[in-house]
C-alpha cells in the first residue's frame, strides 16, 4: 500500500483521511488493530461502532492526542503525528468527553477558538448558526449538555475548516437539536468541507452519510455505502401482516416454509415474518390455508439497526461480554417498536 507524508502528492490530496495499518495498544488491551481506511475529500463519512469499539481512539490519533503503536494516519495530506499543527489548523473538532471552561462565557470560548485559528469569524454569527446566540454572554459552566454541544460545534466551525471531525455529535441533543446538527453537517459539506463523524446512533448516520465504516473491537469490519452494506447482508425482507386473528396454526404453517427465517406474533392481529423476498406469496398462501384472512400487509427492508447488529455481533458463539456491548447501541425509537419481540 503506497503511502506518503507529502501534501503535494496528488493522490493524498484527494484524501481527507488515510489510515494505514493503524494500531493502538494500551498495555494488554488492543484498542485498534491494524485499521486501514480512506475518507475522500468532500464526503460525509459515518464512523460507526458500539461504545468501546475504538472510534474515539482513532479520532484521538488523528489529532495527535494519542500516538499509535503501529501504522500511520494522514489527514488532508499531512502526517497526523509529524505535522499535527497543520492538521489541527485545517480541521474543526468536536471531541468526545470534552469539558468547557466553566468560568468563561460562550463568546470568550469563541474568541479563543477564532484567535487560535487566526480567522476573522464573528463570534455571534457562529453562535447564531448553532442557535445559542442569546446565551453569548453567559458562562459555559451553567450550560445544559445540549448547549455545550452546540457551543463546541460553533468553536469547531471557526476558520471554515476543510475537515470537520465530530465525535458523537448528537450527544445531549434533543431530536430537534440532532436535526439541526444534521443540517449544519450538510451545509458544511455543501460548502466543500469533508465531514467525518462517529456515532453509535444509527438514525444520525443513515440520514446524512455518504459512506460508513463499522468498527468493532478495534477492527474495521465494513466500509461502504449504507445501501451496499444492506445488500451485502442478504436479501431477507420483513413482512408485517395484519390478519383478523392470529392462531398458533397460522404461525406454525408459516414457520415450516423453507425460505422463512423467523415468525413472530406481535399482537393478536399482527404477524411479523422474516423471509426471502420471493417467498412473500407462499407466506400469504400458507396463512390463508391455515384459516387466516390477510387484512393488510407491509414490506420492510432490513433495518439499519439489524444491519449494524449483524456487523457488530458475533454469531451464536458470541461471548456474553460482547452481547453487553451491543446493548449500548441505541436504535431510533420508531424502529425499536417495530422489532419489539
Amino acid at each position, binding site marked *: 500500500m503506497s503511502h506518503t507524508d507529502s501534501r503535494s502528492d496528488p493522490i493524498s490530496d484527494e484524501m481527507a483521511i488515510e489510515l494505514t495499518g493503524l494500531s493502538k495498544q494500551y498495555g494488554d488491551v488492543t484498542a485498534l488493530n491494524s485499521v486501514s481506511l480512506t475518507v475522500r475529500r468532500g464526503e460525509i463519512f459515518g464512523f460507526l461502532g458500539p461504545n468501546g469499539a475504538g472510534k474515539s481512539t482513532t479520532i*484521538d490519533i488523528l489529532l*495527535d*492526542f494519542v500516538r499509535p503503536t503501529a501504522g500511520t494516519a494522514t489527514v488532508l495530506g499531512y502526517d497526523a503525528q509529524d505535522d499535527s499543527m497543520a492538521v489541527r489548523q485545517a*480541521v474543526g*473538532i468536536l471531541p*468526545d468527553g470534552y469539558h468547557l471552561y466553566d468560568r*468563561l462565557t460562550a463568546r470568550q470560548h469563541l474568541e*479563543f*477558538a477564532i484567535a487560535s485559528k487566526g480567522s476573522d469569524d464573528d463570534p455571534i454569527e457562529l453562535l447564531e448558526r448553532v442557535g445559542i446566540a442569546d446565551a453569548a454572554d453567559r458562562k459555559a459552566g451553567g450550560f445544559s449538555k445540549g448547549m455545550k454541544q452546540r457551543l463546541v460545534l460553533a468553536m469547531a466551525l471557526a476558520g471554515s475548516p476543510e475537515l470537520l471531525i465530530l465525535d458523537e455529535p448528537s450527544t445531549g441533543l434533543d431530536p430537534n437539536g440532532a436535526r439541526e446538527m444534521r443540517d449544519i453537517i450538510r451545509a458544511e459539506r455543501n460548502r466543500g468541507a469533508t465531514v467525518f463523524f462517529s456515532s453509535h446512533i444509527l438514525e444520525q448516520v443513515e440520514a446524512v452519510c455518504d459512506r460508513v465504516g463499522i468498527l468493532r473491537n478495534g477492527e474495521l469490519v465494513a466500509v461502504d455505502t449504507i445501501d451496499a452494506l444492506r445488500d451485502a447482508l442478504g436479501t431477507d425482507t420483513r413482512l408485517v401482516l395484519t390478519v383478523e386473528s392470529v392462531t398458533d396454526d397460522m404461525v406454525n404453517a408459516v414457520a415450516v416454509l423453507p425460505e422463512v427465517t423467523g415468525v413472530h406474533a406481535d399482537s393478536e392481529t399482527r404477524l411479523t415474518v422474516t423471509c426471502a423476498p420471493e417467498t412473500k406469496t407462499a407466506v400469504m398462501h400458507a396463512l390463508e390455508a391455515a384459516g387466516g384472512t390477510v387484512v393488510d400487509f407491509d414490506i420492510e427492508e432490513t433495518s439499519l439497526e439489524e444491519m449494524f447488529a449483524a456487523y457488530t455481533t458475533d454469531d451464536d458463539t458470541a461471548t456474553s461480554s460482547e452481547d453487553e456491548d451491543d446493548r449500548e447501541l441505541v436504535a431510533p425509537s420508531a424502529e425499536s417498536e417495530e422489532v419489539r419481540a
Partner: protein
Amino acid sequence: MSWTVVARKDFRDARLSKALWAITAAFVLLSAGMAVLYATVPELSQDIGELSTLGYLTLLLAVTTLFVSVAAIVIGAGAIAGERDRGSSKLLLGFPHSRADVVLGKLIGRTAVLGVAILAGLAVTLGVILALLPSFSPVDYAIFAAVTLLFALVYVGIMIAVSATTGNGGRAMAFGVGVFVLLEFLGDLLAPAVMFVVNGFSFGGLAAVPGWYAFLNVVTPSAAYQNALGWFLGDGTAAALTLGGMLDGAVPFYLTGWASIAVLALWLVVPLVLGYRKFAAADL
C-alpha cells in the same frame, strides 16, 4: 505566537478562581496588616532601630515567600493536569497549539494572575507605608516587587512542570504539595544533612565551614529569592556576609544576589523542560 492565545485564555479563566481571590485577600490583609503593626509596635522594629522601608520589607519577605509558594500550588498545580483530567485539554489541543505552546501559555497566563495579586497586595501596602512610615525608598520597593515577581514566575513554573507530568488533577495537586514541602522544609535540612554525611556521619570536629555548605543554604528557590533580595536591598552585602560569615575572606560569587538570580533561572528552566518532555510524550 500561539502561546499568547493560550496565555490570554488562561488568564481570563484563572483570574476568576475563588481560591485565588481568597489567597489574595489573605495576602493583602497580611501584608498591609504587617505594615501597620511594624509602624505601630516598637518591638517589631527594635532589631533595626529605626522605621524604614528596608526594615519592613525584611519582615514582609517571609510573608511573600509563603504567599507566593502556596498561591503557586493553588493556581499552578492543576493547570495542565486538571485540564487533562476534566477533558478541556481536548478542546485546547484540538486547536493548532503545540504542547510547548500550552506549557508556555500556562506559565505566562498563571504567572500574570499571580503577578496581579502580588501587585495588588503591594499597592495596598504601599498606601499603608506612605501613611505610617517616616521614610520610604521607592527603589527598594520596586526591587522588592520585581524580584518577587521573578520568584512567582519560578514557583508557578515549578508547579506547571509538576502539572505537566500527570493526567490526574488530584495527583498533580498532591505532587505540588509534596514538592512544596520538599523545597520549603526539607530544603532547609539539605546543607546540614550533606555536611553530616560528608563529615563521616558526625557534626564533630568542624573547624571551618566549607563554601559549598553556605551555597547549599541558598540553593532552594525560596532561599535564593530571599538571598537575592537581601543582596539587592539597602546595604546589599549584609545578608550574604551573615551567611558567608563562617567563611574566610570576601563574599564568594556564589553567594551574591546575581548568583541567586541564576539559581532561580535554573529552577525556572530545568523543571519546565523535564515536565514538558513528559507532557509531549503523553497520550492525553
